[in-house]
């Protein structure tokens, strides 16, 4: 037990006993401590005296919060079994409603990353060498005294923010928060427009018309989980709502693919379009607000911008008309995806549009519900680089940030880092930055550490260790404290370790909180159990700040549109800023837009590719002023012919076995230009040229064909059709759906699922949740390219032709648990059979691997183990003990998380009752941000799933085969006009 014990006992004062006590308070906390992870996972040692609060084989759930999984903090319930966390599920008491993103699920693989640093390291000439903590702290601490000290962290809120500022104050240092995908442009624009230095809430759920000028709010921008949920709420057709969604921009991101209409404006002209639309709205709207902005908008008539933006004037008028007519319109800013050299002005233009359309104060509110840590802009970072090169920085402490990867080559950060005498890295991973540091002090993973985060609207989430540290690591803040102590400024922060510092801070917070009167211990305990507390009274009513004079007379800087190709570099929801790259789940999660895994690509419009003779998979050299990369072409109709796009996040030189040397780093293409006003890095707008290399690369694309050939797979209907269908549809609660009869007559259950294609955004959170719950192996790029992926669940992205353009229907595809299953009778050994509750059982240890079942499955959802999969330590600690780990030669597939079904049935049996509706949540359902998935008992005519299955939009996939699936899909609904044959398809109702 060298790893866990040591780290706790000399954990800067957090003694084992204290640690125990606090966790004990948190409820069954001892579980996390007294039974740590086994050293190798190959020994089973029974307790001599078992702890009272551990029942072997049962899960304990701890509330904590994850700040490192994407742009928004996510409250968690971490499922812990015998001292190791196996699964993360959202904490419903926070704005993201207990839903999680794929990236959040993969935090487990971040925790159990086999490449994590297992103890302090010192870098000498040859490379990192093992060191002892005391030695490391001593050496590193002494370097802090010399002055010229800079602390570089990620953006922080809550106690961490206070801690860092106090720390740097104590040491006379400077603190910079680094965030490659920061919101600085947006923030600046809000300051200019309304004098409010904060991020507004975009209440999409209240909107009846959504226009997005580029922000990937479903994938990566601001608060994907929360915003996706709000967005889908605005399109609950069954409740008579269906906000139209128009996307403006050169490239369709996952958000864009969800739009009803695409206005393909030239890259960098979002500003113009927004202004022109605002102009039109102002012209129609009248009223005070219109009057206030008419002057500044005057020059931007649709005609004036039509040419530059390459958008017909009438199109702009139409859009403006819709917004003006809308009851509650909302316009979303360009966000990171369309962040160019005039980013602030683009955001400002959208702010003006929201102002004039009346959205400001209604659907766009400064109600303090969007709290994001402030980060240094790229310009400021560039400044730091200059100072580093200039030798002004003698000691650089980098804690939980990876600028060496996230800063473009052009910035010269890496070189500058070499110039800094003392570089101290505090990070769980040996990433590019840590690798360049002189001292590498490994910190706990978030799930092993204390902390808190501001969740907005006065809520604060509390982070506690959910399990004992895996390796000889320490809490990040504790390391900083110990360094300060070493530098002789230890007492300055008035705490010996971060936990007590945190507790002290919370004591102060309580004083001003609504619960000021209650005893602290009780309040704190409650916070630990529930995951957080309200520390200020409920948010103020939505205020609508007046437009500043500055904004009313703003002179907009406009990107001049050259005639060469424009480059768009964008973060993907799986790798985000690159932090997902060493997690095999994220590498193997098919990209929502391209369905590519494990690699980089450049999106090119077929028209652009045609003269170059390029087809998908060919190698292309992408060249800019800043540099060049060679990667695979991906022909994509969702991008303008004069634009190419390269995703961020790949091309790591360090960070671990999974990330290293994979794909290309799109940042190498950027010349380091930044937005004049906010200093935000310009991710788009760079002039770029592409040349065919003349070789084919291998690109693993997880979808064989992009259209469903009208096979009743991805069904689409228009809003009008939906409205009439729903109006004329009556669900008789006395009778059952047909599929309900496909289980044993004596069984009270027939498990079924309903998937609302209108709600599904294609984010893939369900897929990763399934990987986590069901011990699915990631097989790597080679096998993926051979079509040997193991995902039980895929999100198929189908394009449906509509009048002018195409619509996207995302179809989560998993085992349909057919009542009349073709896979069952062909199995010679009964490995595939029908359970009494109507599932298609799959008996792994019976299977001999004829693979006939897979051939005979029309949905192609069965997966065969071509090899035995590896789970290198400590990844094996994440495996769910309730689910068999399959070996080579065995067929496997989804069985509706049967382990969860059985647990619920046992609980019900113990209370001698039937399983209640909604009691069972499959992993995919639990995770879905838009609640597209509903699971339940089809034999209960009143269960949600059974009602949905008989709804107006319900249909069975490939219904003509009469496989009687237990899954009913609900048609996707669009405002676009369908082309005839699709129309016929969409029209005929199945449910």
């Amino acid at each position, binding site marked *: 037990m060298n790893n866990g014990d040591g780290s706790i006992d000399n954990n800067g004062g957090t003694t084992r006993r204290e640690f125990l006590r606090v966790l004990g308070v948190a409820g069954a906390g001892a579980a996390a401590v007294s039974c740590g992870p086994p050293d190798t996972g190959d020994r089973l040692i029974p307790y001599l005296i078992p702890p009272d609060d551990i029942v072997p084989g049962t899960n304990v759930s701890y509330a904590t919060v994850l700040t490192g999984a994407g742009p928004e903090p996510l409250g968690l319930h971490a499922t812990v079994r015998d001292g190791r966390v196996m699964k993360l599920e959202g904490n419903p008491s926070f704005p993201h409603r207990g839903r999680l993103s794929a990236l959040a699920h993969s935090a487990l693989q971040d925790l159990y990353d086999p490449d994590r640093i297992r103890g302090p390291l010192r870098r000498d000439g040859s490379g990192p060498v093992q060191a002892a903590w005391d030695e490391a702290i001593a050496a590193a601490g002494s370097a802090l005294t010399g002055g010229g000290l800079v602390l570089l962290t990620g953006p922080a809120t809550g106690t961490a923010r206070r801690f860092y500022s106090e720390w740097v104050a104590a040491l006379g240092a400077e603190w910079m928060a680094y965030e490659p995908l920061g919101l600085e442009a947006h923030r600046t624009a809000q300051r200019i427009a309304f004098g409010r230095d904060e991020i507004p809430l975009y209440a999409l759920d209240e909107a009846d018309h959504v226009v997005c000028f580029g922000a990937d709010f479903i994938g990566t921008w601001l608060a994907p989980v929360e915003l996706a949920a709000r967005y889908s709420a605005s399109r609950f057709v069954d409740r008579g709502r269906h906000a139209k969604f128009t996307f403006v921009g050169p490239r369709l991101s996952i958000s864009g693919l969800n739009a009803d209409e695409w206005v393909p404006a030239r890259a960098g002209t979002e500003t113009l379009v927004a202004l022109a639309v605002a102009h039109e709205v102002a012209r129609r709207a009248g009223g005070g607000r219109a009057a206030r902005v008419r002057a500044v908008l005057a020059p931007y008539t649709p005609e004036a911008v039509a040419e530059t933006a390459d958008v017909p004037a009438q199109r702009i008028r139409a859009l403006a008309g819709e917004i003006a007519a809308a009851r509650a319109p909302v316009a979303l800013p360009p966000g990171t995806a369309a962040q160019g050299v005039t980013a602030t002005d683009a955001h400002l233009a959208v702010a003006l549009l929201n102002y004039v359309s009346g959205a400001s104060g209604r659907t766009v509110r400064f109600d303090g519900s969007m709290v994001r840590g402030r980060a240094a802009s790229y310009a400021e970072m560039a400044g730091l680089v200059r100072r580093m090169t200039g030798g002004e920085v003698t000691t650089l402490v980098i804690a939980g940030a990876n600028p060496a990867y996230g800063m473009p080559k052009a910035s010269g950060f890496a070189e500058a880092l070499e110039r800094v005498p003392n570089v101290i890295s505090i990070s769980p991973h040996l990433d590019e930055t840590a690798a360049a540091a002189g001292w590498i002090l490994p910190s706990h993973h978030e799930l092993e550490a204390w902390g808190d985060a501001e969740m907005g609207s006065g809520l604060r989430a509390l982070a506690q260790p959910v399990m004992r540290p895996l390796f000889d690591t320490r809490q990040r803040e504790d390391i900083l404290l110990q360094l300060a102590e070493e530098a002789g400024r230890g007492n300055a922060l008035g705490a010996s370790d971060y936990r007590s510092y945190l507790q002290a801070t919370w004591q102060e917070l309580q004083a001003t909180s609504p619960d000021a009167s209650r005893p602290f211990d009780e309040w704190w305990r409650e916070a630990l159990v529930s995951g957080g507390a309200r520390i200020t009274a409920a948010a103020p009513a939505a205020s609508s700040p007046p437009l500043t004079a500055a904004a009313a007379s703003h002179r907009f800087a406009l990107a001049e549109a050259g005639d060469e190709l424009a480059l768009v570099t964008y973060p993907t929801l799986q790798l985000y800023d690159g932090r997902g790259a060493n997690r095999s789940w994220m590498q193997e999660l098919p990209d929502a837009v391209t369905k590519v895994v494990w690699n980089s690509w450049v999106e090119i419009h077929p028209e652009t590719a045609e003269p170059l003779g390029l087809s998908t998979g060919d190698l292309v050299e992408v060249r800019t002023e800043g540099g060049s990369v060679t990667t695979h072409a991906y022909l994509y109709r969702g991008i303008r012919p004069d634009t190419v796009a390269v995703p961020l996040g790949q091309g790591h030189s360090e960070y671990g076995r999974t990330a290293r040397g994979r794909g290309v780093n799109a940042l190498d293409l950027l010349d380091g230009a930044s937005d004049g006003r906010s200093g935000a890095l310009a991710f788009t707008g760079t002039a770029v040229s592409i040349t065919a290399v003349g070789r084919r690369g291998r690109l693993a694309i997880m979808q064989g064909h992009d259209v469903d050939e009208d096979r009743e797979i991805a069904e689409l209907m228009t809003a009008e059709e939906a409205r009439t269908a729903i109006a004329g549809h009556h669900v008789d609660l006395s009778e059952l759906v047909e599929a309900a009869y496909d289980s044993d007559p004596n069984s009270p259950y027939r498990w079924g699922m309903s998937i609302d294609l209108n709600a599904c955004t294609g984010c893939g959170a369900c897929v990763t949740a399934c990987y986590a719950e069901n011990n699915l192996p990631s097989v790597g790029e080679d096998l993926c390219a051979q079509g040997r992926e193991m995902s039980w669940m895929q999100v198929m992205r189908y394009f449906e032709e509509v009048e002018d353009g195409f619509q996207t229907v995302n179809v989560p595809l998993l085992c349909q648990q057919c*009542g009349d299953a073709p896979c*069952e009778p062909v199995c010679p050994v009964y490995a595939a059979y*029908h359970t009494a509750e109507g599932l298609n059982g799959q008996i792994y240890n019976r299977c001999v691997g004829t693979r006939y079942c897979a051939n005979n499955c029309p949905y192609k959802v069965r997966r065969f183990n071509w090899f035995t999969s590896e789970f290198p330590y400590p990844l094996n600690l994440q495996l769910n003990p309730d689910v068999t780990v399959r070996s080579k030669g065995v067929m496997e597939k989804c069985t509706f998380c049967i382990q969860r079904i059985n647990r619920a049935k046992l609980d019900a049996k113990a209370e001698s009752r039937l399983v209640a509706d909604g009691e069972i949540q499959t992993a995919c359902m639990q995770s879905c941000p838009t609640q597209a998935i509903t699971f339940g008992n089809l034999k209960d005519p009143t269960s949600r799933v059974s009602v949905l299955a008989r709804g107006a939009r319900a249909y069975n996939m490939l219904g003509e085969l009469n496989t009687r699936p237990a899954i009913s899909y609900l048609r996707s609904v669009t405002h676009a006009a369908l082309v005839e044959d699709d129309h016929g398809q969409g029209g005929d109702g199945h449910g």
Partner: protein
Amino acid sequence: MSGILAQYDSLGATRQAIERLRSEGHEQLDVFTPVMSPELEEALGIESSPVRRWALIGGITGFVTALALTSLTALAYPIVTQGKPIVSLPAFFIIMFEMTILFSGLFGFAGVLFHTRKPARRLSPHYRPAFSNDRFGIFVPAVGATEADRVAIERLLRESGAVEVEVSE
């Protein structure tokens, strides 16, 4: 048992010899032939072999066995697949068909072995290697026959074209 063994080099001669011997009242003939020949069977008045009855019984046994195997095992551990009945006769019929043929074939073969007393360790003393090559052979048992009878038989055999006549013990 002693008697007279004659060898012939043609089917026709053998056949005539048999007919004449039988007309002379010699019924207990052992006839060896290198080739299958219905004519000789005819000449010897051999009625058709009972082997086919073996085959028939085998066939019935096979069918019943298969019916039992498929249905009873399915009932012993009833598992539903694709909503098909536990005893899915149409599917099971294929097994029954195959086992019918299998059993009747094997039974038939057993029948032949049984009726021809095979496998036999020793060959008959009257057998000559030439009988598997190009010679036909007729053995006329002459137990307790007088010298005159023997001579008569020998003459008859020679006249009917025997290429070789010997007394075989």
